[in-house]
Structure formats: C-alpha cells, structure tokens
C-alpha cells in the first residue's frame, strides 16, 4: 500500500431533526412574544446554503418604548426588591435550561451564523451556560464582592450584541446585568437573531418575572432607539468601533453608564524559543477560529526572524489540513462567512492586500460553490503601513511580519489604534512577564490563544473600547456605588 493514500473524511452532518424553528418570530416583551407595532418582519438566512430560516420582527421606536417600559416596570415592581439569593435561582435555572437544550442551540447557532458545529457545540453554548452559572453565584454576594462600597443596581440596561457569537454575547450581557439586579432590553444582530430568540423562549419557560428580560430584533435604527431611550440607564454594546463612536456621541450629556467592546487587530508574537508546533497551532486557532469573526482574533502575526521560515512553512502545512465547508459537518474546521456583506468586505481586503504588494498564500482546499465561504489566507511580507495590517478585516486573513528585537516587536504590536488582545509565545517565563506589562491590550494570552472563562475579565484599551465583561469587573459595570 505504498503511494498516495486518499482518506477524505466522509460527511458527518449533525442532525437537524430535533431543531424546532417557528416560521415567524415576534418581539419578546413583558414575558411574552408580541406582534411588532411596526408590522414589519425581515428574514434571516443560513449563510452556508442561502436558505431562509425564519422571519423576525423589526422593532421600531414604539416597540422599543414598550420594551423599555416593560423592563422599567419589572425593575421597579419586582426585580429591584427581590433578594439576591432569589435572583440567583432564576439565573441558575436559565443556565441549566441552556445545558438541557444545548444540542438544539448549537445546531441553530451554526445554521444561522455559519460557524462550525464543533465550535458552537464545544465553545459557544457551554460557555454561555457557564456565564449564567458564574453570575448566579454572585447575585447574593454583591456586598462581599465590593466590601464597604454599598453596590446598587442601575435600572434598565440596553444591550446590543454582534453577530459573531450571538448566544454567547447574549449570555455575557444578560447574566451580569441580572445578577446585579438590573432588567434588560437586548437586541441581537439582524443576521443572527435566532439563538437569542430561543433564549427568550428559555427565559419565558424559566418563570423569570415578566419584563425582566426583553429581547427585540431589528436593524441599527432599533439599536439607536434603545440607546436614545430616556429610561435606559446603562448601555452595553459589542460591535464595530465605528458604531461604538456613534453610541458614545449619542449618550454624551446623559447620565447613562456605558461599556463598549469594539474592534481589534491583535498581535500574536512568536519568539524563537517558543514551542513552535504549538505556537503554529495557536496562530491557527487565533485567526481561523469562527472564520476570523472574532474581535480578539490574532490577525497580525509577528515572528522572530530566526524561526520565520520554519514557522511559515509549518503554518502553510497546517492550513492545508483545515477543512472548509458545511458548518453542520462535525469535521468542519472553518464554516461559512456570516453574510454576503461580510464576504464582500473580506474579499475587498484580500484585493487590497494584493494591490499593496503583499505576498498572498491560500490553502489549496476546495470551498462549496453555494453559500459564503472564504479560504484561509495568509499575507507575507506585510508592513505596518499596509491597510491589511492596520484595519480590522474580521475574516480568515492573517498578516505576517518578522522582527529581530524585543523592543521592535513591542513598538510594532502597540502601533495600532486598537488594543483588545495579544498573544505571546515563548518558553521563557521572564519574557512573558516583560511582554504582558508592555502590551497595550486588555487581554494578553501567553502560550495559548482565544481562551475565555466567565471568571476572567475581557475588554479593550484605546479604540477597542472600555469597561470589562466577565469576572468581578463585569459585575461592577452593572452597579453603582
């Protein structure tokens, strides 16, 4: 049996039989699904097939007003007065129900957003449940979490979340808000509303008092109406830096509290003394996880010149083994790009990279003819002044540079308007500590990448936003003292 052995993995699609989707979803306001006053609906599609999955309501200003008023009433009449240990029970129950329906949530997440089932099953859904579990634990311990500071809830939190981790971002937003004693109006992204609406069903079934969590769907104007509503006391937004700036302008002069988690262009730095094969694995995980639709994606790779050839060779070899295709196939490593708009944007940046003279390398893999897909892509010989190095692409595109000295790489890594995350790969502990103090980034991973835990705060420097989510810091963002 010498010679070329072909061993393509047979398709192993996750079953969709247990998934229950309505044809049409209304707005979840005051504990039930209600028809939108706008009378308008819009469709959400599977980016891997183009198939229409469901229609969801498009909330207008009046709908938003209803939702905020429901949240305000629930806050004043019920939630504010409820002892922490009672709030905890509800939050805990939601966590358990997410676990019970994990398979359905994972499949819907992959259908609606395009991410591989391996990730939605092993990362998104379990982490979402963990966030609820974690914050359930804090609800009755606020006095201990912030001793001598008399923590108090804020009121109504208006929360707007992106399309890259729809369920997980909903959990990051809702869990700490409820634990701190606030009520919520949440808007998922227009391309990925389904798991948030499923979460609304779970919340309804959990018996959480009506109006404590309201989930409404719509486009940017719906989000703007939430931000501008006078009875919203706190705005939490995850999304693009551009929109983040608009929101910050909009709430200037009000006493609304705000946290913004915005874009990123993280540096992933490999030193010559690193465990190279594992570093390459970390780079792959850093940029190709969730098709690169990750605000903390390690989209700029810096390799020390003595190992640059080796690392790039290994990286190219590893990219060849990545399987791009059907998000519901258990063997898929890279799924579908979330939307046509996003794919167009990524392709535009790839063209920009080529025009800028960088050397492009793509995996030789095939991609499905239908749906929105992008091959894993590298750009070599890039420089700090290239647009593909400066701007967030939000796709599976990695820009590679080399460096010689530690001072040089620190300067280059920080020479960017963003500062959300960074990665450092070295076998030397002292180098790790040196680097972490000098990186202007909210999260610095050492010898790993894209690791998330509910107990660990997450957030940015500079134009990557402010405020933290996760851990005690994430709780503090929903309290006044």
């Amino acid at each position, binding site marked *: *049996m*010498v*010679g*070329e*052995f*072909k*061993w*393509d*993995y*047979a*398709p*192993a699609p996750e079953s969709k039989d247990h998934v229950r989707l309505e044809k049409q979803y209304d707005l979840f306001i005051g504990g039930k699904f209600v028809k939108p006053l706008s009378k308008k609906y819009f469709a959400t599609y599977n980016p891997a097939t183009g198939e229409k999955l469901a229609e969801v309501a498009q909330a207008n200003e009046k709908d938003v007003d209803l939702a905020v008023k429901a949240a305000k009433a629930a806050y004043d009449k019920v939630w504010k007065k409820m002892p922490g240990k009672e709030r905890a029970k509800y939050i805990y129950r939601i966590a358990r129900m997410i676990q019970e329906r994990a398979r359905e949530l994972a499949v819907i997440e992959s259908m609606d957003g395009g991410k591989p089932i*391996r990730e939605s099953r*092993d990362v998104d859904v379990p982490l979402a449940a963990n966030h609820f579990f974690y914050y359930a634990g804090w609800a009755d311990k606020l006095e201990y979490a912030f001793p001598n500071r008399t923590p108090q809830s804020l009121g109504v939190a208006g929360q707007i979340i992106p399309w890259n981790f729809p369920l997980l971002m909903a959990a990051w937003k809702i869990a700490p808000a409820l634990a701190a004693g606030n009520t919520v109006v949440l808007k998922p992204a227009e391309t990925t509303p389904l798991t948030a609406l499923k979460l609304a069903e779970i919340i309804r079934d959990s018996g959480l008092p009506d109006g404590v969590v309201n989930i409404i769907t719509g486009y940017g104007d719906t989000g703007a109406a939430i931000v501008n509503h006078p009875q919203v006391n706190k705005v939490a937004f995850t999304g693009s830096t551009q929109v983040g700036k608009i929101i910050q302008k909009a709430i200037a002069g009000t006493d609304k509290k705000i946290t913004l988690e915005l874009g990123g262009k993280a540096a992933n730095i490999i030193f010559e*003394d*690193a*465990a*190279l*094969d*594992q*570093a390459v*694995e*970390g780079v792959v995980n850093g940029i190709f996880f969730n098709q690169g639709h990750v605000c903390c994606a390690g989209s700029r790779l810096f390799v020390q010149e003595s190992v640059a050839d080796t690392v790039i*060779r290994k990286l190219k070899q590893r990219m060849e*083994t990545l399987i791009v295709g059907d998000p519901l196939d*258990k*063997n898929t490593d890279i799924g579908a790009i979330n939307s046509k708009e996003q794919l167009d944007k990524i392709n535009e940046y790839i063209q920009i990279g080529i025009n800028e003279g960088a050397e492009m390398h793509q995996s030789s893999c095939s991609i499905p003819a239908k749906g929105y897909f992008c091959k894993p892509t590298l750009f070599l010989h890039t420089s700090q002044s290239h647009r593909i190095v400066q701007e967030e692409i939000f796709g599976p595109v990695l820009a590679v540079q080399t460096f010689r000295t530690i001072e040089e790489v620190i300067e280059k890594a920080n020479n960017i308007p963003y500062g959300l995350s960074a990665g450092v790969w070295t*076998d030397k502990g002292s180098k790790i500590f040196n680097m972490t103090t000098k990186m202007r980034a909210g999260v610095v991973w050492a*010898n*790993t990448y894209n690791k998330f835990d509910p107990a660990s705060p997450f957030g940015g420097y500079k134009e990557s936003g402010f405020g933290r989510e996760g851990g005690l810091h994430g709780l503090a963002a929903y309290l006044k003292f």
Partner: protein
Amino acid sequence: MYPDLSNSPVVDQVGIEERVARFNTRSIKKETKLQGLKLALNMIDLTTLEGKDTEGKVEQMCYKAMHPADDIPGLPTVAAVCVYPTHVKTARRALQGSSVKIASVSTAFPSGNSTSDIKIADTKFALDNGADEIDMVISRGEFLRGNYHFVYDEIAAVKEACGKARLKVILETGELSTLDNIRKASDIAIAAGADFIKTSTGKIQPAATMPVTLVMLQAIKDHYDRTGIMVGMKPAGGISTAKGALQYLVMLYETLGPKWMSNEWFRFGASSLANDVILQLAKEYKGVYYSKDYISND
C-alpha cells in the same frame, strides 16, 4: 552525524494535549472508517513478549497474523509479528511463504541494561535466525544522565549490525518523564539512523499515548522537511481499541500526510488491538456485532 540538539524545539504539553483533543473530535464514518480499519489491521505488529511464551503460542500467533479473520473477505494480513530473539526461528518457520515480517526485540529488551557487546550479539542472533526487523531499546539511564553521545553511539552501532534489516528504536517514553526529553530522544534516534522510532516496550506504564506519539511525529516531520528522508513511527502498548487506532490514524494523516499511511511507515505494536479491529470490520460487513467468542484469541 550527532544531531545539533539546539535544533530540537521545546514542546508545550498543554498545546500538545489540545491538538490531540482536536484529532479526537474528527468523526470517522462509513467508507472512511472501513478504509481506516483495514489499514489499521495491516499496520499491526502482532506481539507476544512474555517470559512464558511457547513455541506453540508463537506458531498460533503467526497463523493469526496471516489469517486474521478468514470469514471476512478481502482482509489484509497484519504487518509483522513481534517476538523475542529466541522465538524468531519458530516464527520464520511458521510464516514460510508469507509477506508478514518478523520483528524481534533485542539489545537486552526491555531494560536495555547490559553491555554493548551483548546487545550487538543479541541483535545478530535475531538476524541470523531470520528476523526482518529489529526493535531495540535505548539506554534510558544514560539518556537521563545527559549522556546523549552514548545513546547515539549505541543506536548507530546496532544500526550497523542490522545491515539491511530495518531498525526500530524504542525510546520507552514512560521513563523519559517530559515531552521535551521525548523530543530530544527522538532527534537522537533519528540522527543515529533509526528507520522507525517507537514509543514503548509495553512493560512500563504509561506506554503509548497520543500526546507522546504526536511529539515523535513532529520530530519525524521536521527531519523530513529538513532532509527529505522519511522515518517510520510505531506507537506500542496501550492501544487496544479500533476507535483508538482510528484516532492515531487521523493524527498521522493530519501531521505527516498520506505518504505515511502504510505499514512501510507506521505500525501499531499491539496484541489485543487486532481482535477489536476485526470485530468492528465484521460489524461493517454484516451489520451486527459478533460475540467475541467468534474471534480467535491467538
């Protein structure tokens, strides 16, 4: 040539384990599974290495090696039988006319604690009796003491004694304690002329594990990229299920690629694995699981 060990990269255990976990989430079904199971069967070094081994047991095992399960059509033979030097002659007779190879452990297996002269003599005895392949053990004591040159020289000497016979070098990874050491030992063995590197004797726990095997595969890969020379890999001990074997094959496929997917370059050292593979193959063909009573224990 003695290797430049400064070229041996460090190994991050957490990273290795994460990579292995990812291999294990690959879903191997249908035709892919069938192909993988047949290949796994064809890669087995059917092994008996006990003090109480008898001629009869070796003969029975040799028959099994040639006829793993005659009621299932189109099954390959296993790759080789693996025995002590004193049983090579019996195996040679029993395997007359078959393509199944004879591997013999040598060099004072399993501890390797003996003089160089005895180790060479042990190897020559096995070869004179008809062994096709030699599975030697390295001197772990000398390795752990930092006496790498000694280890290198000993492997090179056995390789010379082997002539055309292929040499598998057992690192006994369960005694090397760190993945960094395993990488270093792999690089030394490869540089000294190993045709295969092998994890374990099967006498020490832990024997073969996927993380350890991955480190060794990466050493093989780096050597290949540097020189264009292929080296084989043999995890041995502890792999007893077909599912486990398929996971190793996924790891092999995604680390070294299709060129290594044959028993020229990859072996499983195992005694009970063959029967589980046969059980799974029978299920693929007949649609139902056999009772284990239908499969010979030879």
